[in-house]
């Protein structure tokens, strides 16, 4: 312990932890080899990031040394401790991690060259070897990887040595180039709507990916734009923050209106593919908002959530389709929707009532069971007289809104429909969260026994969460069947429940904005269970990534990308209290405050 000049004792931070570096090297080696064997480099090679320098396939390997070296070099900065002085040792450590990762690949190359175990491992192929050796000789490839890995590791390590400004600039440039490349379909489509093809033709290569010049341009813009606009945004922000409350809420309202108006006209500037994509995202936003009420607010882990989606979809199909095998009233969609909502609510009650008293984990597995039972019933020959069994129900008409019919042929109209219903769902979630019942849900999530003892009828309140969640899912189901036009039991696999859960968790449990962001990022970019996202090439790997993401989120950032204040407090209780204590907010003094 040393005393600094102002008398507060500070602790010397420990030096470089070499064991940590070695562990990260090993992790790097194993992950690189795993990614290679999973077939990502070969499978993703088709997708260009920067033509002809970098493809998604190579990127899937190249991020490993960089990110791991950077992670290995990061350290927790504790209050009251001096930060360790960074030195060239950090560079060496980073390079070591990078080298380790590269060596993993080199070892793999040697093995692939000399042995053939393609029998169980499908990606153990000559193509992999070719790709890894950059289509040259294997020896040259190995040298190349060692150099590349070490360099990237060095750069990853350097992230901690260089000044913060340089670091954040580098990351901005890297991320914006990547983002512009990934969002290619969307950007092209949008700019086409505004007749600005010239720009996209300039930066994008014909068959996908950025041109080198385009990449340079994007990089330059990423540096220049924040310089030009950055300050002004902060100025405006502080000005808004300093406004009186009613004026501020007026500004917020105007922003909200402008935002929704923009969203409403957006579909008209987008092409078919993008509209389709956003409609899919919207369906998942609806589902995720519903699950968010059940899991995020009331703390009930419902793994059979797809059941309500299925009931919504099937009911709409039965009520509107002329091909419905058993009962076919051919109602117009809006009328059917009312029946759908009521019926799904009832199914929510029916499923909810038996499970609601069970303890959390039993509830999870029983709801999962219900989800499967419902799918199996739709699939069964027994009920095929009503639901068509494996053949499903086809020929579902769209939504007739007078001047047009909303159906899958016109993704734009579907997207608009989804937008309207998402707005309704957002409103419902928002209002309920800040109401008597929302508080009761939160109390139940915190401590069910105490909530009960404080007069909250937990059974009814939890059932209400179940029913509201079910109703939101039924919206999604009804739109889904109008969109696709036909409905099969395979559209309602248990997988969907899990994917919705991932969306909610990655976005941020208990947070409306988070859920929307989660759906945009995951469904929009990686794609839904059957719907392709912007990175279509990822379809083979997206479920793997979903799984890994779920685990990683739970371990490192359980509050999600856009955390709910309350949730993150709960998950980081100790850190939160420490912060509050340091800021002097914690209440240690029991003297009555002077009034």
């Amino acid at each position, binding site marked *: 312990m040393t005393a600094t000049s102002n008398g507060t004792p500070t602790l010397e931070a420990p030096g470089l932890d070499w064991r940590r570096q070695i562990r990260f090297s090993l992790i790097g080696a194993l992950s690189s080899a795993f990614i290679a064997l999973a077939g990502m480099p070969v499978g993703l090679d088709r997708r260009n990031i920067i033509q002809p320098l970098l493809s998604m396939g190579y990127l899937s390997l190249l991020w490993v040394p960089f990110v791991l070296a950077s992670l290995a070099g990061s350290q927790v900065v504790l209050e009251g401790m001096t930060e360790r002085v960074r030195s060239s040792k950090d560079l060496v450590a980073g390079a070591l991690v990078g080298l380790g990762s590269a060596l993993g690949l080199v070892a793999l190359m040697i093995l692939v060259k000399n042995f053939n175990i393609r029998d169980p491992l499908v990606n153990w192929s000559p193509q992999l070897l070719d790709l890894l050796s950059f289509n040259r000789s294997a020896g040259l490839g190995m040298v190349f990887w060692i150099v590349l890995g070490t360099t990237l590791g060095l750069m990853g390590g350097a992230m901690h040595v260089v000044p913060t400004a340089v670091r954040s600039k580098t990351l901005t440039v890297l991320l914006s180039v990547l983002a512009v490349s990934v969002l290619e379909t969307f950007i092209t489509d949008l700019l086409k709507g505004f007749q600005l093809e010239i720009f996209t033709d300039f930066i994008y290569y014909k068959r996908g990916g950025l041109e080198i010049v385009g990449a340079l341009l994007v990089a330059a813009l990423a540096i220049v734009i924040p310089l030009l606009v950055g300050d002004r945004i902060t100025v405006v922000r502080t000005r808004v923050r300093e406004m009186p409350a009613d004026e501020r809420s007026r500004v917020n309202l105007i922003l909200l209106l402008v935002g929704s108006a923009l969203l409403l006209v957006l579909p008209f500037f987008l092409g078919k593919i993008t509209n389709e994509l956003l409609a899919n995202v919207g369906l998942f936003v609806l589902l995720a908002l519903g699950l968010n009420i059940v899991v995020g607010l009331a703390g009930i882990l419902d793994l059979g959530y797809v059941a309500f989606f299925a009931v919504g979809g099937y009911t709409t199909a039965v009520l509107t389709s002329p091909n419905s095998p058993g009962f076919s009233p051919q109602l117009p969609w809006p009328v059917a929707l009312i029946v759908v909502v009521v019926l799904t609510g009832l199914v929510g009650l029916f499923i909810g009532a038996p499970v609601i008293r069970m303890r959390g984990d039993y509830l999870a597995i029983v709801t999962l069971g219900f989800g499967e039972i419902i799918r199996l019933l739709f699939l069964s020959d027994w009920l095929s007289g009503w639901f068509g069994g494996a053949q499903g129900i086809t020929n579902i008409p769209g939504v007739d809104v007078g001047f047009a019919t909303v159906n899958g042929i016109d993704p734009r109209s579907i997207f608009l429909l989804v937008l309207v219903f998402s707005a309704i769902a957002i409103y419902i979630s928002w209002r309920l969260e800040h109401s008597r019942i929302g508080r009761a849900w939160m109390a139940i999530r915190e401590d069910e026994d105490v909530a009960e*003892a404080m007069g909250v009828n937990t059974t009814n309140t939890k059932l209400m969460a179940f029913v509201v969640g079910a109703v939101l899912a039924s919206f999604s189901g009804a739109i889904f069947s109008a969109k696709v036009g036909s409905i099969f039991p395979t559209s309602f696999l248990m997988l969907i429940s899990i994917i919705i859960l991932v969306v909610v968790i990655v976005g941020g449990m208990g947070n409306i904005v988070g859920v929307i962001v989660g759906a945009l990022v995951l469904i929009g970019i990686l794609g839904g269970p059957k719907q392709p996202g912007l990175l279509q090439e990822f379809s083979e790997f997206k479920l793997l990534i979903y799984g890994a993401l779920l685990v990683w989120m739970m371990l490192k950032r359980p509050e999600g990308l856009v955390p709910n204040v309350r949730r993150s407090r709960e998950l980081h209780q100790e850190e939160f209290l420490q912060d509050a204590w340091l800021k002097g907010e914690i209440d240690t003094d029991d003297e009555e405050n002077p009034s």
Partner: protein
Amino acid sequence: MLQISDLSVTFGGLHALRNLDFQVTEGEIVSVIGPNGAGKTTFFNMISGMVTPTSGDIVFEGESLLGLDPSQVTERGIARTFQNVRLFANMTILENVMVAQHCRTDQKVFGALFQTNAFKSEENAIREYGEEVLSFFGTRLTGYRLEQPASVLSYANRRRLEIARAMATRPRLLLLDEPVAGMNPRESAELTALIGRLRSEWGFTIVIIEHDMSVVRDVSDRVVVLDHGESIAHGSYEQVANDPNVIEAYLGRQVQDEQAEEETSP
């Protein structure tokens, strides 16, 4: 007000409470004391419906509480605090007392969605009543604290908030489980005074479980002593403190009277 007759509960052969008779009249403050493991908390859990008795009956204002859920017991006017403070730690202080008014309010989903006038005025009323309850403890739980999470509160203030939360359910009978545990003598003296005011200003009837004998002496009209799940003595503080059964329960057999006197009264 509360009549408990011949109440027993067993947990797999262990008699937590045995043939207990107990009553509280309106306006009383009754203390329940007894050595650790005497079944005091079980007794509270039983009244508040968290544990179902094996036999016997609990009658509150002419109605049996047997078979009611804890929330229904609370609705009928009995609120409690917990020995190991159990607040909704991640909800704000105000929300803690707001949620406790759940059973006294009735706006449902419809009101919240359409922002009916009934909903708005009920929300306001809930908030105002919550603030009123909190202001009973001076400025400790009000002002900027209202929007802070309960987890930042000091131990003593958590105990106070727990009492406030119980008050917010608008009970007539308040069950306080060791309200001054962990407080220093000054704080506990202050809380003792507040307990008196809970009766005189708010009209609550109160049952307290307490180990601190000075608090018991100062607040209670009557003291009931439990040991091994049985009521071994009851009466005024002085009567109970001198009861040989009680002294035996606390100190074991063959102990001089003077010593017992020393131990039980501070």
